[in-house]
């Protein structure tokens, strides 16, 4: 059975094809295209698209539609012709009255719909990757985050056996401590994840770990939520400060394991000229 999103996409394409075959006028074609995009954004994705993005895309679509219709006099005339006919031809009066009733009714329905939503926490712009400080102190030892490297990363090439031991240790640390929230496949869906707000980040996709240097992860693991900087909040995370429970080596090892398990590479440092 084909997923419903494909049916939606196919139906919308079919509508476009039918309009092309029927040589639909500018007015009908423009309106149909706008609604096709609206329907596709609402129903064309397996995971629903957040309203903020739908509004953004529809705003762009509306701007583009207005630009298209008004950029040529002939096109503008074609677009407005059905509306002008609707307004001035006596034979179309019933339709005009219908539109006059329908538009306020649609507005009223939209208002009712926007008010009739379940109560939930308000949306806010959460910063996922706050800027790290230049230096931190872990277990009374200062670390310069600008130059800090994972001390065991170099073993990957120089001593693969030792590197494998560090990975195994990282695996142990992860499954003893982190798995409950981050999940056994690091998708941010551990058994406690559903009790957290926001839920843990999905490390399995390529847009998180691969964008960060290992020093950033060391800072986040060691200091957790309580160690987030005050500037530029609001920060929001339930991550504990793991420096209270893990040794420095354990934290470096678990970072190695995160990258190894998700098959990603840490962001390389920019070389200063």
């Amino acid at each position: 059975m084909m997923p419903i999103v494909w049916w939606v996409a196919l139906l919308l394409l079919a509508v476009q094809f039918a309009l092309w075959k029927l040589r639909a006028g500018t007015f009908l074609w423009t309106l149909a295209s706008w609604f096709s995009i609206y329907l596709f954004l609402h129903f064309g994705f397996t995971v629903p698209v957040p309203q903020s993005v739908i509004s953004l895309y529809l705003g762009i679509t509306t701007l583009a539609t207005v630009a298209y219709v008004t950029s040529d006099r002939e096109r503008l005339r074609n677009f407005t012709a059905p509306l002008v006919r609707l307004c001035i031809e006596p034979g179309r009066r019933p339709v005009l009255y219908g539109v006059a009733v329908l538009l306020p009714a649609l507005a009223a329905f939209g208002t009712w719909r926007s008010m009739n939503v379940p109560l939930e926490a308000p949306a806010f712009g959460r910063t996922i990757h706050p800027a790290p400080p230049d230096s931190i102190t872990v277990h009374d030892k200062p670390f310069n985050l600008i130059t800090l490297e994972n001390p065991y990363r170099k073993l990957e090439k120089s001593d693969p056996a030792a590197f494998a031991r560090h990975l195994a240790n990282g695996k142990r640390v992860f499954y003893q401590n982190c798995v409950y929230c981050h999940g056994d496949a690091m998708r941010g869906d551990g058994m406690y994840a559903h009790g957290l707000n926001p839920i843990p980040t999905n490390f399995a996709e390529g847009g998180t770990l691969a964008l960060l240097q290992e020093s950033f992860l060391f800072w986040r693991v060691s200091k957790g939520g309580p160690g987030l900087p005050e500037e530029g909040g609001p920060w929001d995370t339930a991550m504990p400060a793991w420096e209270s429970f893990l040794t420095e080596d354990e934290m470096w090892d678990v970072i190695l394991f995160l990258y190894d398990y998700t098959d990603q590479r840490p962001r390389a440092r920019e070389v200063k000229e």
Partner: protein
Amino acid sequence: MMKKGLAAFLAALLGFAVIVGIATFLLRREYHAPYRAPAAVTQETPRAQGIADEKAEVEKRDKEKPYQEVEYRQFPKIGSRVAVWIAAQLHLLFAAFVLAVPLFALAIEFIGYRTKDRRYDRLAHEFTKLLSVSFSLTATFGAMLTFGLIILYPKFTTYLVSVFSPTFLPYVGLFFFEAFFLYTYYYGWGKFSPRVHLALGLGLNVVGTGIMLIANAWLTFMTSPSGISEKGALISTWDAVRNYTWMPINVHRIIANVAFGGSVAAAYAAFKFLGAKTDEERAHYDWMGYIGNFVAICAFLPLPFAGYYLAKEIYAYSQTLGLTMMGGAFSWLFIIQAVLIGNLFLAANYYLWLGMGRISGAEQFQKYIKYLLILVATCFAVWATPRSIISTVSEVRAMGGSAHPALQFLGVMSAKNTAVNILILTTFLSFLLYRRSGKTPTVSWAKAGNRAQLAIFLVAATIVISLGILGYFVEARVRIGFSIPQVLSVLFTMVSVTVIDVFLYRNATKTGEVRWGQIAPISQYVLIFIAVTFTWLMGLMGYVRSGLRQHWHVYGVIRDTSVDAFTPTLGFATRIVSVCVLLFFLLISFVFWLASLTGKKDWEPRPEKAAETERPGLEPVGAAE
């Protein structure tokens, strides 16, 4: 005459009566202490003694008060930060305009000199009309900014002086020369030989750029200080000048100034077009708006690359600054930036499509507009797609995080770079179609030339899209490197296709003339929209660059310990930027109005007044002699 005198007398009488009435009314309601006869001998009461002692104590304390250096002073009502922010923003906007207009005015004058076409000379002169008042306003806001810094942030200003004092004298010297060149360039229009006048324009541009380079050193030092010891002591002024972000800012500002200046000059033309009374005026200002917009868009196309270079250098200087900018507190402003830039691209294309309406023979290209629009809108949507989406709690749960499983791929650098390059190619294609409107090539190789141009476009688009897709599968350092071939392929396309086009349409037959002035009036509002959007964008991005330092005056060296040592909310910041933009457009409207006075007739007295003044009895003494 008698009647007028009587009316004045009665008005004065009435005025006095009103004053007497108000005074009487107020005095009746004033509290008057009952009269007490003075005692023969003043009795010293303990209370009076206490007051006298207190006064003496205060006087003594004041005399012994030691001199203390003040760290901060507060500006009333709006606070020091907002006061300096507004002064700096307005100074920068006028300075950018004053630096940009001579750049393209000189280029247009040079074209006029080479082609002997007087229209270009008139156009360049018209642009420079806006300069002299803007120059005065730049200096006024510069003085306000300097005094603001000295008064409100004395300690920080003293530190900057300790590092950059050797640059101040050259700055003042250059400023003097700028005034000399600017006024001789403007007032000397048509009074010197063309070559001398062009040399004056060149001098104006060189001096203006020099001033900008020095000022850029001061502000970039605050973000990426160098040439100082770990404790902040000066080691080398030259090293402090050429700090990490100095050259990227220089490049970015020169290009952005031209884009901004062109757009404001085009807005001036739009303002004049909308108020024009004759077809001739409409034609002139339509053409002026087109040239201004052309300058703005030409400069705008490479601007994203210059911005990318600046951001890369900020990242290279400090990962913390880079993350604060792109992943931290300021990242949401880049979504607004994307929406504004997308709007600019859409508006630039829209203006070109509207412009086709004034060329007979452009109808053949109308069928392509829908495809160009789909490309522009798609790239706009990709560029504006955030990676971390603003969403409700239920939406976050449905997505399994703050990134959407499908749309997250549009939120990363690979997608953004690809989108902006395709946007630039599409805008260039729109311009090419506009340029070809009403012309038919006559060269024998026309077909082959068209095919070559199409092939270049397709190859460039393939390179851009392929590297964009490949960027998802490589590490960040390699991905950043991909932007260079992407940019180069787009630049190569623009240059090579233009060269082919110039030869292709040499001696082309004209199927229709450009009917200047016969463009839909909405196009003029588009020009004003572009200018406003550019200005807003400059304010917004300037805030990001400056706000990056967060609680530092000089990043990592001089900490901000004032009451404003926090990053304001994005809503507050955008409101301040909006106020600055409004103030700028109010002031620039004043400049436009002043510039429009030059073409008006001199004031003359009304005929009856003129007749009055001509009576012999009123002639000044000695006039008859």
